[in-house]
């Protein structure tokens, strides 16, 4: 009972003092937290130090360009699109070493539309070699077994026949990279080996529904450059796509909406998941390309938060009125 007496003898004045002290302590801690809290990370910058970094592969006077071509035959469509953009020579020159980042994520046949179509890969390889490129490398880091993915998707055979090298990822190809501060990509393994000596980068992806992000198109396709247990980023899928779009500055992007996977993506599995949308989007603005792709899926940029995030980060434009859009038919 004696133990209780000091507390029991507590005066009202003492109680209020205690409360004020506790309140001051709470206010101090809260204020400190509020002062240090950052709702939006500061602008992201590529790290220096000993981490690897991808060069800027974009062509300075060719930004915010987009060609939208309708048709059914992919080789003709890409030729028409490149002509509209001033020819492949505007992007790839004599002596260039070109890397084509395809979507070879799954060991599935081309007819399912889950991977970059081999006809499109072959056509782009020929275009680059025709423009004088010394080497064209086709690569991806699939989540399935790489050898099966490249073989069964038809990409390996098509690329080799067209004259490209196919580079399957090896453990020695990965090196850590960082976007900082506040980035998800921090000291994270990047598929860097195939980029050695590369002077131009082309991203090629199909338009697909995606169960987690809502869509898988150009910006989501850079996910395949990450190594490690990258599925942990699914929790922050829109943010990781934004960061990837900041990390990679391509020369050209090719978004294939000849057939669009409307549902059950990203793997699909049935021809019933596909819709003939007869559109190929080629350009230099990743955000604009994905905006057009979203339309093929029956969505708007507002439905796909990563588009708005990438635009706000300065990657490109979802407002097509500020992009030079060239339309053509390949029928």
């Amino acid at each position, binding site marked *: 009972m004696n133990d209780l007496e000091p507390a029991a003898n507590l005066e009202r004045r003492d109680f209020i003092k205690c409360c004020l002290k506790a309140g001051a302590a709470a206010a101090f801690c809260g204020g400190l937290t509020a002062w240090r809290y950052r709702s939006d990370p500061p602008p992201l910058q590529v790290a220096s130090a000993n981490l690897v970094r991808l060069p800027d592969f974009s062509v300075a006077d060719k930004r915010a360009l987009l060609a939208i071509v309708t048709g059914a035959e992919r080789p003709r469509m890409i030729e028409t699109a490149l002509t509209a953009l001033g020819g492949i020579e505007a992007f790839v020159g004599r002596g260039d070493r070109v890397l084509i980042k395809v979507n070879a994520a799954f*060991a*599935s046949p081309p*007819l399912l539309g889950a991977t970059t179509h081999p006809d499109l890969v072959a056509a782009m390889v020929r275009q680059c070699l025709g423009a004088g490129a010394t080497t064209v490398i086709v690569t991806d880091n699939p*989540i399935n077994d790489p050898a099966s993915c490249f073989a069964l998707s038809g990409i390996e055979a098509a690329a080799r026949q067209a004259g490209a090298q196919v580079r399957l990822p090896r453990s020695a190809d990965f090196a850590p990279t960082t976007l900082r501060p506040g980035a998800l990509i921090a000291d994270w393994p990047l598929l860097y080996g195939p980029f050695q000596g590369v002077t131009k980068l082309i991203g090629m992806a199909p338009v697909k529904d995606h169960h987690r992000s809502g869509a898988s198109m150009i910006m989501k396709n850079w996910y395949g450059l990450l190594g490690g247990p990258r599925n942990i980023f699914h929790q922050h899928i829109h943010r990781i796509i934004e960061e990837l779009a900041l990390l990679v500055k391509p020369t050209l992007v090719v978004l294939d909406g000849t057939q669009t996977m409307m549902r059950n993506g990203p793997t699909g599995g049935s021809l019933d998941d596909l819709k003939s949308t007869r559109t190929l989007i080629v350009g230099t603005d990743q955000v604009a390309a994905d905006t057009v792709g979203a339309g093929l899926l029956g969505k708007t940029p507002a439905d796909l938060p990563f588009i708005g995030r990438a635009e706000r980060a300065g990657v490109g434009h979802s407002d097509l009125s500020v992009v030079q859009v060239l339309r053509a038919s390949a029928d």
Partner: protein
Amino acid sequence: MAEVKKRRRAPPNRKESAVSYLVLVALMVIAGGIWIQQADFDPNPWRPVTTGKDPTVARPATPDERNGSSLEPFLTAGLDALGGSETFDTQTLSDKIDGKADLYLKAGFKALTTARLRFRSEPAHWFEIFLFDMEDSDAAFSVYSQQKRTGAVALDFVRDGYRAGNAVFFISANRYVEMIGAAAAEPLLQAMVQSAEQFLKQQGVSTETGDPRRLFPESDLIAGSPALLAADAFGFDRFNHVYVAQYRIGADELTGFVKECGSPEEAAELARAYGAFLENFGAKLVTALPADATVHRYRLFESHETVFSVGRYLAGVHEGPAQTSTETLTASLRNRLEEATHE
């Protein structure tokens, strides 16, 4: 001591009460923040436990599971295995199907076994088998129904199965099976159908549970549309294990839904919570009948919503385009559920 006791019994003054309330409000704000933040959880590996086993503990498939998932029954005459089989667990499922893993993990995934088979005479004609071991037949039906392709042709040897242009999909007990062809060729599709039939003959079709889809009235029901949403139906995080079905009434298409709860009280409480959820998103309560016959009607922008409970069933209509068809389906659902409670 008497003075001490008297002092301790004294009620708090207004300042003390105010400080106490401030502290409580601060705690509630913190709790609310935690609640909101945790709502965006990663189901891999923090999937809700729905069986006695703890699925949050990542583990490779056991030898028993692998044996149980043997793909040998799929090998019909003229087919060869193209490479070995692969097995994936909760931790590695996304290595095979990437972003679609969420769908399976939320429904109750145990293991995936895959293998490719091909024609001996036509090597370009191959197909891949995806054999998903789910926790139970409901979990299998959930992933099957949520991915069901429209315009598919039903298989005549299994209750839940169909063939599409290049693929075959079906359920066998707690297994969901996909057979994906590399070409849209009729001989290949026929081989897949025969392979599926042989597998089902050896494995047996589930008869362990009744069909909860019986709770939907048949009139105006779009055939093959019933589906089971494993989690977060209509964006409401308390709507787990909700059956939905599509109806066409006149020119209107609308969705009916049914959820079986543990008790009538739970069903009624969940109906009220769903109504509050709708109102949070801008829905206007149109009418509410007395509490013992609750059919709550809401107008959410241009669509009509209803929710009610009958016994331990919660049900309603989602995204009705017109009031008349919404009322028709609501009445029809209610009648069916009242019958079901007396069966």
